[in-house]
């Protein structure tokens, strides 16, 4: 059970955005700009970074929902999402994304671990400043979302079908703040 009186039956981040719409609105705006706005990285690639960081933070809700979104967005290359989650090599993953996921993994531990060599490796495979910036900010942002969702012990659905539905919604509609609950 959640540590505070969140709306009943609403999972993860949605319950928090309904409890505190003042901050929730801006968090959804941030997610929409960061994961769907203009970027050298595709929405699928950005969802993959979100999935990787959430997996490393052991946040089941964020990992499962963003993995579902990434599968939808990668479409016929969807198998690569589970390879990344299980840390298995796959030819479906580009060298550029491999290098960016490695940077994201460092950021998940601490921003201070990212080295010039990590960045040079990403550049060698075609990542530009914007791609590196967006990778670092996505990894940092999910280091926030994961802590927010788990730190208040929000509801984490266990039925994979629920995440499939979330993934479809995130892939088509994107990030839309839920309506606050009537008090």
């Amino acid at each position, binding site marked *: 059970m959640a*540590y*505070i*009186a969140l709306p009943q039956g609403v999972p993860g981040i949605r319950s*928090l955005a309904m*409890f*505190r719409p*003042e*901050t929730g609105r*801006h*968090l959804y*705006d*941030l997610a929409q*700009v*960061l994961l769907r*706005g*203009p970027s050298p990285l595709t929405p699928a690639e950005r969802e993959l970074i979100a999935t990787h960081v959430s997996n490393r*933070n*052991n*946040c089941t809700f964020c990992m499962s929902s963003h993995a579902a979104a990434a599968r939808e967005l990668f479409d016929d290359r969807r198998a690569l999402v589970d390879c990344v989650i299980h840390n298995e090599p796959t030819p479906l993953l580009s060298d550029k994304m491999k290098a960016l996921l490695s*940077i994201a993994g*460092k*950021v998940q531990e*601490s*921003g*201070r671990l*990212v080295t*010039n060599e990590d*960045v040079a490796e990403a550049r060698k495979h075609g990542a530009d*400043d*914007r791609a*590196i*910036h*967006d990778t*670092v*900010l996505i*990894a*940092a*942002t999910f*280091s*926030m*979302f*994961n*802590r*927010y*969702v*788990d*730190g*208040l*012990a929000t509801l984490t659905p266990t039925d994979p079908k629920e995440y499939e539905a979330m993934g479809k919604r995130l892939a088509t509609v994107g990030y839309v703040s839920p309506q606050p609950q009537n008090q």
Partner: protein
Amino acid sequence: MAHIALPEGLPGIRGPMAFRPETAKPLNEFAEILLRGDNSLTRGERELIATYVSYLNDCFFCQNAHGGIAQHYMQCDLEEMDRMKMDPESAPISDKMKSLLAIAASVQKGGKYVTSQQVQRAKDCGATDIEIHDTVLISAAFCMFNRYVDGLGTDAPRDRMFYVNRGKARAEEGYANYNPYH
């Protein structure tokens, strides 16, 4: 030197925010509500949580920038601020703040480190659900800001008095209309 070509001469988070205004906008609007909006936690208390988490993350820029702002609100000196962030349990702050900072320290490690005992202690000290929520979110937010600032290898002045001297102006400037070039 920063890992990407940021506008020159801007300390800490100001470089990335000037580099990418599209994401700076929701980040700053979020910080404004979280740290300066109407709240039963004072602005000083919220900046102290931000400073403490940034200290635990060893983020030089954030712990000093927010420490300077907290110092302004709390009207204390650098030594007193250092004592609060290095050992809050023995610092001259309320029992409620001590219990909230204990939650903040767990969030810094990972969301799952927060225990129901910690939350109960905060409630026993009079913390409301919104105060507990905001403590968790401020702590989580600084785990983001700290990683953003350090993950891009941004530069920051090493003289800590730079931040102390800017505390008042930064507190008055706020976050919503933040101009990274100032």
